[in-house]
């Protein structure tokens, strides 16, 4: 119905089991190692000063690590980029701790814990770490978070005609919320997307909305398939697989209540 949203991929960042950085991700996605990848140690949050770095939560560390990797690969400065963060739960361990405190009528909460409880904590630390004055948003799309994040980032590229950073991050809750919101692994994915003319020779995306998604290409590894099914940010894996292997073609991501994003990935997209 509408012309697709088009963008060039200038940089990619990723952190998850078996995919600790884009180089490792390329190896795994091109030639999957049949061993089950271990949950990696959390990366440092590269943009933050040392004091903040020590206190940073897992979700902030993952988000800033993949953001820095993608921005570095794009050869851009983080402070120049509008950014779209997508996460299902923000800092799940902080939400759990706050709920425990409230249930125990312990209302003297730590100020740091309270400001880390907001959904946009990771995006706030990104702004602080990068000393950015550019717009940064934080979206909640439930299981469709990565899709709505990608949609918002592509829309910003299309309307404001400049590069945009997308960061998707999802880590699981501790018990007891883990029982009602099971999640596989801790995953973060970042893309720097730009108007196609800003990325000659780069892989392109052409995205449109559809009500009829089709099956995604297989990832070649049961652990990655499991993550893709049970971690909203890992729903980016089929797209990353196409970027890593150069096997052009479509992927689908849920992007709302009923809609899906159909993304053609490749040099001709």
């Amino acid at each position, binding site marked *: 119905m509408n012309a697709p949203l088009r963008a060039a991929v200038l940089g990619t960042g990723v952190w998850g089991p078996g995919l600790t950085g884009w180089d490792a991700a390329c190896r795994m996605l091109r030639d999957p190692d049949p061993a089950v990848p271990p949950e990696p140690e959390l990366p440092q949050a590269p943009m933050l000063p040392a004091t903040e770095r020590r206190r940073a939560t897992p979700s902030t560390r993952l988000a800033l690590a993949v953001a820095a990797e993608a921005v570095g690969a794009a050869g851009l400065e983080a402070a120049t980029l509008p950014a779209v963060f997508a996460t299902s739960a923000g800092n799940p361990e902080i*939400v759990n701790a706050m709920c425990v405190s409230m249930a125990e009528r312990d209302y003297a909460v730590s100020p740091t814990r309270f400001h880390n409880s907001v*959904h946009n904590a990771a995006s706030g630390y990104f702004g602080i770490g990068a000393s950015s004055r550019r*717009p940064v948003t934080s979206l909640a799309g439930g299981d469709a978070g990565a899709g709505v994040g990608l949609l918002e980032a592509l829309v910003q590229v299309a309307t404001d005609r400049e590069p945009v950073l997308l960061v998707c991050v999802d880590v699981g809750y501790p*018990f007891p919320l883990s029982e009602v919101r099971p999640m596989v692994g801790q995953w973060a994915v970042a893309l720097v997307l730009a108007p196609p003319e800003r990325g000659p020779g780069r892989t392109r995306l052409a995205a449109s*909305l559809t009500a009829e998604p089709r099956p995604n290409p297989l990832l070649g590894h049961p652990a990655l398939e499991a993550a893709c099914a049970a971690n909203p940010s890992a729903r980016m894996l089929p797209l990353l697989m196409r970027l890593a292997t150069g096997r052009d073609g479509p992927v689908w991501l849920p992007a709302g*209540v009923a809609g899906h994003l159909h993304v053609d990935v490749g040099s001709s997209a």
Partner: protein
Amino acid sequence: MSPDRIAPLAVTARTVTTAVGRGADALLRALRERRGGLRPCGFDAYEGCHFELPTWIGEVDALRRPVPEALARFDCRNNRLLEDALLQDGFAARVAEARERYGRSRIATILGTSTGGLLQAEAAYARRDAGGRLPADFLYMETLNASSTAVYAALRLGLDGPAWTVSTACSSGAKAFAAAERLIRAGLADAAVVGGCDSLCLTTLAGFGSLQLLSSQPCRPFDVARDGISIGEGAGLALLERVDAPGAAGGVRLLGYGESSDGHHMSSPHPSGLGAELAMRDALARAGLAPAEVDYLNLHGTATPANDQAEAQAVRRVFGETVDCSSTKAWFGHLLGAAGAVEALVCVLAIEAGLKPGTLNLDTPDPACAIRVLADNQDAPVAVAMSNSFGFGGSNCSVVFGAAS
């Protein structure tokens, strides 16, 4: 680099619910009668938990009716408030008409919230079993997950277009307007339900208490004796369509928006309001307006010492001392994730009614905030009005509305 001017969008339906009442008329009456809705904090959070704190809150009364049966899984305080709001001012009916016109997949639903259904989780944690497990009737995705706000509205209104929740703390409800405008401009939607809804919970009250940001009195924006915020709850909703849509002649337009970051601190504003200034300037640029063309500015005006002083400096750099400003937070409180939406609606109503609301509880203006903060209401035509919203994480957004020319 300033952003390019954008085409205006028509606000074809709007509604607002806060502690001063349900619906736009209730808010306008309260503004005209100078009747605030704040009261001492004795919050019946859930059965067996009555929470008192030496501060004042803007609670919406009687959120006891569950959401409609078909969406019973989404029942929680935040969605009850949202449901109540959707029923005011014929809002849901106007959206249904738009759905007939455009088709359900062509209307986006972008709403802001900060804590959404968190109270539901707090109540569930209080009922954990001996093994620490949550009760079986606690439904995570439909209540606690922040997406619940937008998903509830989309399902309730029968909309299949792009739908998500913006959660950037106290700028959420303003940033929803920006995201929706972009979706329409990019051709992905013909209309959008936008705004925000946020409701009281223990975490918010206790957390702002721990930051020592709660006022001991009804909040007093820009007063020399201000000592913090009064927390409230509420919802503000608008339907945005292109200006050539049927029924969109006349009325109020969304003219522009500006978003920025402070890049400074998680919970303190930049001391001289650099990010706030950028948001206002970008909003003016998108609207194609000079500062002097703004008739009324609804300030973020939380009534913390730091916010009001930083915001005043930013406003002064953009507008000088000439623009009529006020903070309306002493009427209904700081609505957090809904603040940007409800105060956008205050601007829409200011234009519709020819009213510049003043600032309740402002007796002695702080000389350190040298801008023209109205204490009293002014009956005067308002052709252009801007709303400021700034949040934790240094997230800023300004939104500009104007009368249809």
